[in-house]
């Protein structure tokens, strides 16, 4: 069984492995990061560490929307960096059997959208491997944008 933290953006549900989630926090103000990839909403000072905030909305063709006080952010640790994932709400932790996953790589053009889809008690969940959440191009563009902003 894989434990996922399931979160929602509008009516869509997303999941990331629970072991990769450090914390869930109420959303905070996100500072814009010039020339960053669309999936990067901006940066947040996380206890002295500048952490990119990721907004999956553009991936799914959803228009930008102002943050609300009841929105959440998930702190996830990838091998390269910490990321904040912006979410409208967090549904909770759910166990998803591996069999419930369909490997979407062959089905969907541009599989980078997400890594798998599974059904949980909440419904269909787009499951992300946080190491592959950002494409190589996005990682490079993000690094360059952080460099230009003087972020170590």
């Amino acid at each position, binding site marked *: 069984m894989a434990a996922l933290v399931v979160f929602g953006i509008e009516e869509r549900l997303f999941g990331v492995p629970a072991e990769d989630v450090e914390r869930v926090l*109420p959303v*905070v103000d996100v500072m814009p990061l010039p020339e960053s990839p669309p999936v990067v909403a901006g940066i947040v000072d996380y*206890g002295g560490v500048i952490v990119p905030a990721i907004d999956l909305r553009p991936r799914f063709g959803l228009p930008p929307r102002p*943050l609300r006080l009841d929105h*959440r952010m998930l702190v996830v*640790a990838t091998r390269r960096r*910490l990321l904040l994932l912006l979410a409208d709400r967090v549904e909770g932790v759910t166990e998803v059997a591996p069999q419930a996953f369909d490997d979407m790589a062959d089905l969907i053009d541009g599989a980078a959208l997400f890594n798998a889809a599974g059904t949980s008690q909440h419904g269909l969940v787009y499951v992300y491997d946080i190491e592959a959440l950002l494409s190589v191009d996005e990682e490079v563009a993000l690094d360059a944008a952080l460099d230009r902003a003087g972020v170590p």
Partner: protein
Amino acid sequence: MTAGGPGPGQDAADLPDAEIRRILRQRAAALARQPGQGGLVREVDLIAFRLGDQRFAIAADTVLQAARLGTVTWLPGLPAFYRGVVYQGGEVFPVLDVRPLLGMAVAGPAEATTIALLVEAEGRALALAADRLDGLVRLAAADIAPPAGSDDGPTLIDGLTEQGLVVLDIRHLIQDARLVVNGQPTPRTRTSGGSSG
């Protein structure tokens, strides 16, 4: 309906935009001041080993076993990265010297190698030749600097530490096309009787 301050459950629609932004900025400032985020640094457990005078490390969770290397049998047709195959725990593992694969010179006699790290990833398994085991090391992921040129796609190493430890990316390494033997995508050979080479 919610009394008190701007709690997480409060309906933001009740508040003017400027007030929401003020609260979000206030939260951001509080988060920035929060100490101890250093504790969130991701650590990785690695098994470190030596080949010649080069130190390598691989993710500990990919290591099935460290074993004294028994008789290594050379098989015709094996690429030069392999020393041969060993029989271990009922299975045959190809023994890989990672250095030629990484373009490193192999110094010293190959016979010095006495240890095999049996590793498994992506459903494949092989044995990595090692001269000496340095044991388990725990490193902050941030201390492993990605290799130069890693923007060009996957490389076989996760990075280097300041101490010169080469951290191998076993998941990519084990899938490297150059490791393919006789058109078999999997280096592991199961001893299912009658079909030995």
